């Protein structure tokens, strides 16, 4: 056969190369093992020199299979092994299956080309209109009354809407609250609500709560709450020590 140099990268894998060689030799797939095709294949892989490992492995693997088949053919065959599917038959079957799908993929290419001639468009884009607010039942009197209500509430709360306002200094700090909690008796249940002053501000509640979490994180306390919104029970000390007693 001609010494045409064949680039492996042109092929989709060892089966593709084998089919190419079979086609060139003008033989049937069935006759691959009584032809020169397998020798050609092995030579091509051997002579291909530097190959990308990923690409090469499947080609080399096939070469090994072909060599194995060749070497087996030289050995006497045990008769009781005849029932089994031989590697030859397996490879022929694989080649036939692959040939079918290669044929199909060529037909699919025609379908693809034909379907590509028909164009469709993207959906229309409709920008959504600005949302409109419908205000009904509002009178000038109502508006004035609402304003008076708000002003009165501001006065009652003692929060005068002065320009600039006032920023109060922090009255509670997490570290101070932690120290406060740690002064409580150890290992006996404490109610979270009891840690707070009688008319605790939101600021105080949050700070004491954060102090409790910090103590739990440090392992100096642990807490228990059976249901949501229930008062939290807090224990000072390590959980293990407390549970032991």
């Amino acid at each position, binding site marked *: 056969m001609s010494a045409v140099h064949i680039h492996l990268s042109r092929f*989709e894998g060892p089966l593709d190369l084998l089919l190419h060689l079979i086609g060139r030799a003008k033989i049937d797939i069935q006759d691959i093992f009584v032809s020169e095709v397998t020798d050609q294949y092995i030579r091509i892989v051997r002579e291909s020199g530097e190959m990308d490992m990923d690409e090469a492995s499947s080609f080399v693997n096939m070469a090994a299979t072909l060599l194995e088949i060749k070497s087996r053919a030289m050995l006497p065959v045990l008769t009781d092994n005849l029932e089994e599917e031989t590697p030859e038959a397996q490879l022929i079957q*694989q080649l036939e299956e692959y*040939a079918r799908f290669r044929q*199909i*993929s060529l037909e699919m290419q025609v379908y693809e080309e034909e379907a590509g*001639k028909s164009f469709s468009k993207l959906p229309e884009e409709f920008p959504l209109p600005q949302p409109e607010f419908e205000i009904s039942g509002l009178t000038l009197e109502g508006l004035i009354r609402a304003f008076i209500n708000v002003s009165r509430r501001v006065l009652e709360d003692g929060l005068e809407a002065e320009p600039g306002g006032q920023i109060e200094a922090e009255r509670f700090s997490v570290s101070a609250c932690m120290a406060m909690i740690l002064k409580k008796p150890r290992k006996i249940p404490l109610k979270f609500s009891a840690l707070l002053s009688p008319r605790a501000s939101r600021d105080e509640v949050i700070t004491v709560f954060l102090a409790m979490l910090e103590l739990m994180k440090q392992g100096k306390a642990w807490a228990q709450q059976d249901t949501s919104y229930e008062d939290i029970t807090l224990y000072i000390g390590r959980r293990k020590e407390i549970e032991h007693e």
Partner: protein
Amino acid sequence: MNDKLLAGIIEAILFVSGEAITPDEIALALDLPEDAVIHALGDLEACYQETGRGLSIKRFGGKTQLATKAEYAPYIERVLQPIQRRSLSQSALETLSIIAYKQPVTRMEIEAVRGVGSDYAIQSLVSKRMVREVGRKDTLGKPILYGTTDQFLSHFGLGDLRDLPEIPTGDKQTTFLSNDQLSDDYILPE
């Protein structure tokens, strides 16, 4: 509502929608029985088949889409110069046809046919939305099963999987599995 009016309404809906929609979606929106919509789609299609119309009804995977007639492609391309249709590579096509005929199928099963690693080809088909994961095979390692998408049908101009070209028959029976022959040895996604 007479038939012509309904066909016109549906044409307008398909035009605005652009994307493929099911007759069911149209029927729901118009508060009409699905049969009426299917019938009107048939009327519209017949109307388009006459010469002098540039559009056609494209059907795939139970959906309907408005598309230009294939025979006018050369003229369209003259106006819209850079229409670049990217066709699939040989390896992608091979992999895709194996998935199309053998779905649901695992990567290993695809590679057994092609005799070469196909991970890259599969991933590229997934990213092109030709192929998607359809479940896991109930076997060692629970490998991913792949199947084709509606996008695949559309890309190849197929109405459904039965429109695939027939497999050339060899001496051995092909291993084609139709959808109703699927065995129990795979599991569908939850």
